[in-house]
Every structure is written in C-alpha cells, then in structure tokens.
C-alpha cells in the first residue's frame, strides 16, 4: 500500500473495496473490509436510533399548529420558534408559572444530588475505610432497597408522607428520590474506594489526622471522579422521576415541569407543539450538566483507568 492510501473510515472502506478485485484476493483483507463496512453501518444506525426521538420533538415543537403528529410529515412546512416563546413566557394554561415549576424541578434535583453525595460518601467511607465487624453485610444491605422497586412503593410513600405532615412538600419527593439513589451511590463509591491505597490512611493517621480529616482531605479529593459519576446519576434520577412528583405534589405552585408535560395528555385538544417545546427546554439542563461532567464521570466508572 502506498502512503496516499486512506487508512480510516469510509474512504478507506471504499478504497479497499475498489482495490479488492484488482489485487490478489486475500482473506484477511476481505475480513477487514467487511469489518469496516459493518462498523460504518452500525454507526449510522446508532446515530439514527439515538437522534430520532429528539428529532421528533423538534419537528413537533417547530410546527406552527402543533398538530404535526396528525399531518404525517417528516419536515415542518413553516418552522417557527413561537412555541418556545409561549413556553418561556408561560403564556398557556398548562404552562402558567413555568419558571416556578422549573425552579421546583431544579430544587428537587439539586437537593437529591447533594444529600445523596453526603450520605453516599460518608457511608462508603465508614464501610470501606474503617474496620467494622460484618461491615460487608452493612455495605451490601442498601441494595435490598431495590427488592421493592421505586414505583411500586408510591402508595406506601404517599401514606407515610401524609403521616409525617409532608404531603404537598418538595421535601417528600426529595426524601423518596434519595431513598432510591443512595444504594447505588454507596455501591459505586465503595467499589471506587478500594482503589485508594489504605497506606495513605495509615500515613495520615501517623501524622495525627482523625477520621474526619482523612475523609475531608484525603478521601473526598481522591474519590472525585466517582463522586462526579454518582452526582450525575442522582441528578438524572431526580430529573427522570415522574410518578413521585405527580402523586406527592398536589398544588399548582408545587408542581414540577415533568408533571406539567405529562399533564398535556389530559386534554384532547392540547397544543402538542407547546408540549414538545416544554420537553426540549426541560431536557437542556441535564444534557448540559452531562456534557460538563462527562470526562470525570467516565473516569469515575472507568476503574481500570486510574489503577496504577
């Protein structure tokens, strides 16, 4: 092969295909061509697969009348951003106090994230760094929470929160969300903490550091990638969650955006372009946070990458 030969991607695959018949036929070359073509096909399929629902959202949100789903078109005739204006100014019955609802969603997500981080890191630290008798049992015990899946506990939660006087309170949702994010957080953080050498703790102890100082100055900085992974997980969990927000919050000014979006389905004649525009606005923060934290998060889950 000369230096001008394309080595990667579709040009390379095309080049190999064209030279395939000319050159002497060799099995390993044929295999590489097939592998390249298969990889490109799979890549294109994945691209369509990943983007189709998002494209559908944009298609409906940009439509003038909001009845694209009844028109059977694949491209809006006269795209307009009017739906986004309506959403951002709360100019529709279901979208009243849009920013308040947005703030509620944000508050729930951030509080869930912070409490999960605090509980998760403290629990993982106590279980992993301090020697407790039968600590492993305690460490794996939170996973039992998942024996009864989240949405199946809504009815009991609803009753308990009423007893606690937390009905129609954002804290009820936060408490529920934290219940279901902490077991996974403890799991991830515990696994990650195994990579931090115990000798560091011992060295710090000789220097006179107590458990709290070891936690603050040694454990937290070293576990940062896993903490990033866990925060993303908790944040996305709260942002994905619908049923608890729907059941536990009843009044208009405690409502969240997720509930507001699903509410559109209650009406027969709802403007779907407003619904989809709301959906897109609601999707922006987690996507932004995800991209901001992506590097750390991959490192947090990539345990092999940090192993020396």
């Amino acid at each position, binding site marked *: 092969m000369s230096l001008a030969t394309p080595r*990667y991607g579709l040009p390379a695959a095309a080049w190999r295909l064209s030279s395939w018949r000319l050159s002497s036929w060799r099995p390993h070359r044929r295999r590489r061509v097939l592998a390249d073509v298969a990889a490109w096909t799979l890549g294109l399929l994945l691209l369509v*697969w990943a983007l*189709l629902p*998002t494209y*559908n959202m944009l298609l409906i949100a940009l439509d003038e009348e909001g009845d694209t789903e*009844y028109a059977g078109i694949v491209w809006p005739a006269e795209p307009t951003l009017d739906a986004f204006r309506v959403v951002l100014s709360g100019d529709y019955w279901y979208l009243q106090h849009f920013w308040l609802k947005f703030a509620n969603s944000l508050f729930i997500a951030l509080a869930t994230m912070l409490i999960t981080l605090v509980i998760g890191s403290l629990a993982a630290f106590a279980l992993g760094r301090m020697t407790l008798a039968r600590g492993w049992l305690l460490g794996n015990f939170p996973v039992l929470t998942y*024996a009864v899946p989240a*949405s199946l506990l809504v009815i009991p939660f609803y009753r308990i929160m009423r007893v606690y006087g937390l009905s129609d309170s954002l804290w009820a949702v936060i408490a529920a969300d934290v219940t279901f994010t902490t077991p996974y957080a403890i799991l991830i953080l515990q696994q990650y903490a195994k990579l931090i050498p115990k000798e560091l703790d011992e060295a710090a102890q000789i220097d006179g550091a107590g458990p709290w100082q070891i936690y603050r100055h040694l454990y937290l900085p070293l576990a940062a990638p896993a903490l990033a992974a866990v925060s993303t997980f908790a944040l996305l969990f709260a942002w994905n969650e619908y049923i608890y927000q729907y059941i536990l919050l009843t009044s208009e000014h405690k409502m969240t955006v997720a509930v507001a*979006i699903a509410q559109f389905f209650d009406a027969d004649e709802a403007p779907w372009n407003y619904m989809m525009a709301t959906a897109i606005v609601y999707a922006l923060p987690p996507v932004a946070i995800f*991209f901001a934290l992506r590097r750390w998060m991959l490192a947090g889950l990539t345990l092999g990458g940090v192993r020396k």
Partner: protein
Amino acid sequence: MARDPALYGELFAEPRYVTTAINTLLYVGFGVNVMMFGALLLSGFFLRPQWWVRPLLAIFLLCWAMPAVPAFASFHWMLIGEQGLVDALLRELFGVDGPLWFNDPWLALGSNIIAHIWKWLPFWTLVFIAGRLAIPQEIYEAAAIDGAVGVRRFLHVVFPLLANIYVVCTLLATLWTVGDYTTVFLVSMGAPARSSDVLATLGMHYAFDAAQPELGVAAVMSTLPVLVPLALILMRRLHAGELQL
C-alpha cells in the same frame, strides 16, 4: 395494607391481572436481556480506534441524559399511527404502510420495550466500557499470542472477565425495570384497552383511578416472591466477587 389473604384471591381472579403479569414478565425478560447483551456488544464497538467513534458515543449517551418524560412523550407521538414520524418515514422512504402500533397488544408491548431500551442502553454500555477498560492490556496481548482474537477473544477472554459485572448489572437492571412506570404510562399508555399494562402501571391504576388502593398494593406485593430472592442473589454476588462497576 395488603395483609388480607382474600385480597390475593380477588387479585388472581382478575383476568387483567394475569395478562399484566405475563406482560411484565415479557417486558422485563426481553427488555433487560436484549438491553444488557446489546450493551455488552456495543461497549466493544465503542472502543474501536476510529476517529468518529468518540463523538458517536457522546451522541449515543444523549439518550441517557434526555429526561424520561420528554423522551417517552416523544416516543408516544412518534408511534401514534400512520401520522406518527416512524410511519411517515416508512411511507416516504420505503413506500410501505407502517402498522398502527398501539392497536395491537403485542406491538404496543414491543414499543414499550424499545423505548425502555432506548433510554437505558447508553447507561449500561458506559458501565461495560468502564469494565472493559479495567481489563489490563497485557491480558489481551497474551491472548493474542495464543491466537484469541476477534470473536474468540470476546468468548474466551472478555466475557469470562466481565461475567460477574454482567450478572450484577443484569440483576440491578431487572429490579429497576420491574419498577418502571413512566415508560408504559407515557409510550403506549396501556393501549389498546389496558392490554399492554405492566404491574407498576396496573397497581397505580387500581390505587388512584379505580379507588382500590388495597388491590393496588396487593398487585405490587405479588412481585416480591420473585424480587426478594433476586436482591439477595445480588447482595451475595456483590460480596463474592472482586467487582468493578
């Protein structure tokens, strides 16, 4: 709330409960296994050296970052029938009439499964990518000398090393998927005539639409004989293996 044994007799006598239990079994069985195996294969794909794989992974992970309610509402409108985007695309590109997705119980169930996989596949792919990266390069090199490349490397090197992570993740995904309410609630909405319900949506329907909270809780409790052993196996697995998630 669901102490009364007679309640379970009433529950099992409900024809809808039986359909729903079968639906849940299929939803979880197909959904989780297809998703996990797909994630395992895709994690290998996303470690290919080509320049376009990294950006594609970022776009692919977007599905996970996309909140559930918007994503599933979009799925609902995409599959709403001949006016939905999927059928419109089928017509424009291939000239075929797509099916009415929510008029057939099986197609509706399938749509729910696809939507669930769409949302959660990236997360598990990411976990498996992390698992694969944790395999030291020397093992691959040693295996290559012994002739294990391609499919054989996957079967005899990658898969055994990831087996414990795979089992643990599958168990976790199973427990999470049984409790998945949002997908069925928004994608098929139980259509046609509540025949694509799963236990999570049926329990809620009993409790809040039909004003029978006890029956709703009983429907939920009937999953525990399966779920509690699964959770116990998960606990043991976590303790047993040097696990990396």
